[in-house]
C-alpha cells in the first residue's frame, strides 16, 4: 500500500471488503452517495471511498459521520482545501468537534488533547487527509507544495471540553445548539504553547494571552490571518473565578489586540517585511471581527494555553467552516 502511494508515511490498516462494510455501518448514508467534489482534482467522492480511507486511517465505524462532516466542511469554496493543500505555508485543516458525539465516540478533550494517545482524535483527522491524498490526488511534492509542512497536515482533530467549561462552546458561538453535533474546520498550523504560570487575575492573564496572540503567524500581520486559541482549564479558571463569560473575555482581549501600524510598517525597526506605508498612522485589530476562535480544552493541571496560527483569511483565502454531523 505504501508503494502504491496510498500512505501518509505511517502504516495503514488494509481496507478489506469486510472492514469497509463494517465501516459503512457507522453511517446512515448510502455508500454511493456523493459527499463532495474532492480537491485538487475535483473528483466526485462517495461515502464508500471515505469509508475505505477511514479504515486505512484506523477509524472505528462510529467515527465515520465525523469524517464525512469534516470533508463536507473542507471541500467548500469558502474553506478552500485546494489552496490550503497547495500553499507553501505549513497549514492544514484543524478540526474541532462539539456536541454529544465527542464523548460518545471517546474523543479526548483533556490530558494531551492536542497530542497523541486517543484513537478518535488521531484517526479522524488522518482519514480526512488520506481522502484528500488518495481520492483528490493531493500529495506532497505534487499539488502539495508546503515549504515545511506541519503536523496539521498529517491530521489534527480534537474535541472541546464542554462539560468543564463555564462558557458557551465554540459551536454555540457559531450559531449551533449545544445538543447538535458539529465539526468546525479551521485552517491552521501546529499549536504553539503560551506559558503563563504566574497570573492570578483575569486582568493579568488576558494581557499575557494578548501578547502571545499579537505574535501569531508574525508580529507584522494584522487582520489578514485568523487564530485559534485553546484555553486550558487552569487558565479558564482565572476568567471564571472573575466572573468573565465569553463575551466579556472577547471584549477585554479585543481591546488589547489593537496594533499601531507605525511599528509594523515595512522598514520599521530595520525589518523590510511589513505593512505598506499607505497604512501608516492607523490603529488596527490583530484579528478581523470573528477572526479569533476560542475553545476550552486540555488537562486539568498546567498553566498553559495554545495558539494555533491561521492562514490567509476570508474570501481571499480560507473561512472557518462548521458542519452539522449527520449520523
Amino acid at each position, binding site marked *: *500500500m505504501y508503494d502504491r502511494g*496510498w500512505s501518509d508515511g505511517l502504516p495503514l490498516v*488494509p*481496507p*478489506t*471488503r469486510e472492514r*469497509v462494510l463494517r465501516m459503512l455501518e457507522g453511517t446512515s448514508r448510502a455508500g454511493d452517495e456523493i459527499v463532495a467534489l*474532492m480537491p485538487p*482534482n475535483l*473528483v466526485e*467522492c462517495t461515502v464508500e*471511498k471515505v469509508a*475505505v*480511507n477511514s479504515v*486505512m486511517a484506523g477509524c472505528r465505524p462510529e467515527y465515520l459521520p465525523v469524517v464525512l462532516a469534516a470533508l463536507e466542511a473542507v471541500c467548500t*469554496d469558502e474553506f*478552500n482545501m*485546494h*489552496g490550503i493543500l497547495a*500553499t507553501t505555508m505549513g497549514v492544514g485543516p484543524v478540526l474541532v468537534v462539539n456536541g454529544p458525539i465527542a464523548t460518545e465516540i471517546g474523543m479526548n478533550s483533556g490530558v494531551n488533547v492536542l497530542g497523541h494517545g486517543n484513537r478518535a482524535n488521531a484517526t479522524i483527522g488522518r482519514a480526512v487527509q*488520506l481522502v484528500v491524498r*488518495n*481520492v*483528490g*490526488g493531493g500529495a506532497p511534492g505534487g499539488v502539495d507544495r508546503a515549504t515545511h509542512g506541519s503536523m496539521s497536515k498529517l491530521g489534527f482533530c480534537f474535541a472541546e471540553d464542554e462539560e468543564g467549561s463555564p462558557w458557551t462552546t465554540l459551536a454555540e458561538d457559531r450559531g449551533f445548539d449545544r445538543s447538535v453535533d458539529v465539526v468546525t474546520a479551521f485552517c491552521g498550523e501546529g499549536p504553539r504553547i503560551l506559558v503563563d504560570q504566574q497570573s492570578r487575575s483575569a486582568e493579568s492573564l488576558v494581557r499575557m494571552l494578548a501578547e502571545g496572540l499579537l505574535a501569531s503567524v508574525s508580529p507584522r500581520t494584522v487582520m489578514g490571518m485568523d487564530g485559534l486559541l485553546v484555553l486550558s482549564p487552569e487558565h479558564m479558571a482565572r476568567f471564571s473565578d472573575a466572573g468573565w463569560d465569553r463575551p466579556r473575555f472577547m471584549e477585554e482581549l479585543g481591546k488589547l489586540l489593537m496594533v499601531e501600524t507605525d511599528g509594523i510598517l515595512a522598514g520599521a525597526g530595520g525589518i523590510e517585511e511589513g505593512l505598506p506605508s499607505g497604512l501608516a498612522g492607523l490603529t488596527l485589530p490583530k484579528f478581523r471581527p470573528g477572526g479569533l476562535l476560542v475553545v476550552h480544552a486540555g488537562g486539568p493541571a498546567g498553566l498553559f494555553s495554545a495558539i494555533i496560527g491561521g492562514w*490567509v483569511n476570508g*474570501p*481571499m*483565502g*480560507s473561512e472557518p467552516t462548521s458542519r452539522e454531523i449527520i449520523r
Partner: protein
Amino acid sequence: MTEPVTVLDPTAEATPRQRSLNPRPAGLEGLTVGLLDISKPRGAVFLDRLEERLTTQGAMVRRYAKPTFTKPAPVDLRHEIATQCDAVIEALAD
C-alpha cells in the same frame, strides 16, 4: 504461506486525460502572449519587465490577474486566456 489479502481501492479510480503541450512557437512576431499575475505582492514587477522584452520582440501582450493567489484561476479566466492568446506565462511572486 499466508493467504493473499484483497483490499479495496482508496483512490478515485480515474484515468487522467493526457494532453500534449502546444508546439513551441518559432518566434514571437505577431503572437499574442498572456501574462497571468497570481495577485501576490510584486508579481507585477516581474511581469512588467517581461512585457517590455516581449513587446520588443514583436509580441502583443495581454495582462490578466487571478482574483486571489490562494485559489485556482476561475474557469472563465482560463477560457478567456485560452481563446485570446497564443501563449501564456504565469508569474509567481514575493
